């Protein structure tokens, strides 16, 4: 279980203090999938980075399974069971997809067949990708799916995804939803925090939270929240054209 207590974060811009998040308190219980939505610039990605340890709050506490992890490093939090999928995945010259999946599992001896299972789960033909370098030769969509595969491979107690659907096509979008379902089944008591505006991702949530202008505006179970959000920028449907055939999610 993840608990945020009165979490605030600010940056200095042109010698002025700019508040990004203020007084965020929320709980993500075990075995729950929470979708965090809200307008762009509302502080969603920053909140995810605070949980992963990439940014440090100016005040407040982060508790993970009862332990105060506010002062812990990224590595320590990862080892406790927090996993984080970047919105814009990182490229590495020379490191192959197989290497990255092995790093994620922490097993240098992970077999190619086992690594391929993770790629297949994100809709990539494993034999075409397993030996590819994670470099500029991969498209944004391919990279995004590999990023999700690394989080899948970690099998962490809490997995955070920052806009997992951005840049991926319709086929893998549908697959992505199945992937989340399978992750929930395969990792007992696992919880998820997914940042997304997509209605179909909101639809698989147990709880939905809306972050706007740096504060938690609303939260509640899916049934309560979804009817209010549909039609706003916090719950964007796929394009009609896309729904009926080929193309990308807008």
């Amino acid at each position, binding site marked *: 279980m993840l608990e945020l207590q009165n979490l605030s974060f600010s940056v200095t811009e042109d010698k002025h203090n700019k508040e990004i998040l203020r007084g965020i308190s929320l709980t993500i219980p075990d075995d729950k999938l929470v979708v965090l939505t809200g307008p762009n610039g509302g502080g969603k990605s920053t909140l995810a980075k605070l949980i*992963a340890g*990439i940014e440090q709050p100016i005040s407040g506490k982060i508790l993970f399974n009862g332990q105060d992890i506010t002062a812990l*490093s*990224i*590595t320590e939090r*990862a*080892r406790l069971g927090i*996993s*984080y999928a*970047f919105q814009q*995945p*990182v490229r*590495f*010259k*020379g*490191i*192959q997809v197989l*290497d990255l999946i092995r*790093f*994620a599992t*922490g097993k240098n001896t992970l077999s190619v067949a086992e690594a391929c299972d993770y790629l297949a789960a994100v809709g990539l033909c494993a034999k075409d990708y397993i030996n590819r370098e994670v470099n500029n030769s991969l498209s944004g969509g391919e990279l995004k799916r590999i990023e999700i595969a*690394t989080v899948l491979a*970690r099998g962490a107690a809490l997995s955070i995804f920052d806009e997992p659907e951005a840049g991926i096509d319709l086929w893998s979008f549908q697959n992505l939803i199945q992937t989340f379902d399978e992750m929930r089944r395969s990792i007992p008591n696992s919880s998820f925090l997914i940042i997304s505006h997509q209605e179909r991702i909101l639809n698989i949530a147990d709880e939905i939270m809306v972050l706007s202008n740096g504060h938690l505006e609303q939260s509640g179970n899916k049934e309560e929240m979804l009817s209010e959000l549909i039609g706003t920028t916090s719950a964007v449907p796929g394009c009609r054209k896309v729904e009926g055939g080929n193309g990308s999610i807008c």
Partner: protein
Amino acid sequence: MLSMDEIKKRLLLEVADLHDVPEGAYNIRADGKSAGRRSSANIIITPKEHGSGLDIEIRPGTRNESVHIPVVMTESGLKEVVYNDFHIGDNCDILIVAGCGIDNCGNQDSQHDGIHRFYVGKNSRVKYVEKHYGSGTGSGKRILNPVTEVYQEENSFVEMEMVQIKGVDDTNRTTNADLSAGAKLIVRERLMTHGEQNAYSKYVVNLNGAGSSADVVSRSVARDKSYQTFDAKVVGNAPCSGHTECDSIIMDQGRILAIPSLEANDLDAALVHEAAIGKIAGEQIVKLLTLGMTEAEAEEKIINGFLK
């Protein structure tokens, strides 16, 4: 079975992946003397006078054969210049493994300057692998100054893999290549320097024949207080295509000078150069931290991948 001490055997393993004598033709040079030599039916190794090197003749049409000529040195203060000439006939397809390992536990400099000349016949394919390695705790330097000259006849193909990852204090590498029509040269250099090491790597590739091409790529890492210079020039003297690239990571107080250059002497020469130097991207480290690595582990994985 080679009669060599454990240190020499370890060096042999580092530079040529050899536990013992290799398959096919070979010459193993240890502390200035031949520790073993074998010719094959198609690859004839003849020593030059006074132990100053080898003439290696590879008969036309030799295919799927290899020749290993590693050098190991453990005697502090030994300095040698060795000339190895490869005469490769037409229509061959061969692997050549060279490399030099120096272990210097003394206080005098040890130095090996290997001058390798390759005369590559028409339509032949050559893969050349050269690894350099140094070890030992003495104050004497480990110095390697390889010179590689490649003369490629029509439609020949040469791929060179040059690796120097560890332990060489001072190196001055020179590689020159002349390519005839339709010939192709690929060079992949990987270099890591640390401590107070100096490395200078210079390439001049002359694309003399129509349809010739070259791709010279160096990936390097300069750590601690080491200094590297990468100076690669591709000269297009005919309708040809050439590419040179230097991609480097600097760490600690490491420094790198990259001088990729191009000279087009023909209107249809298409030449490209690229160079990039920078520290490890912070986001790469962060990604690996989120997978549970420490910062030191993340750096090691990134460097190992980069130089793989």
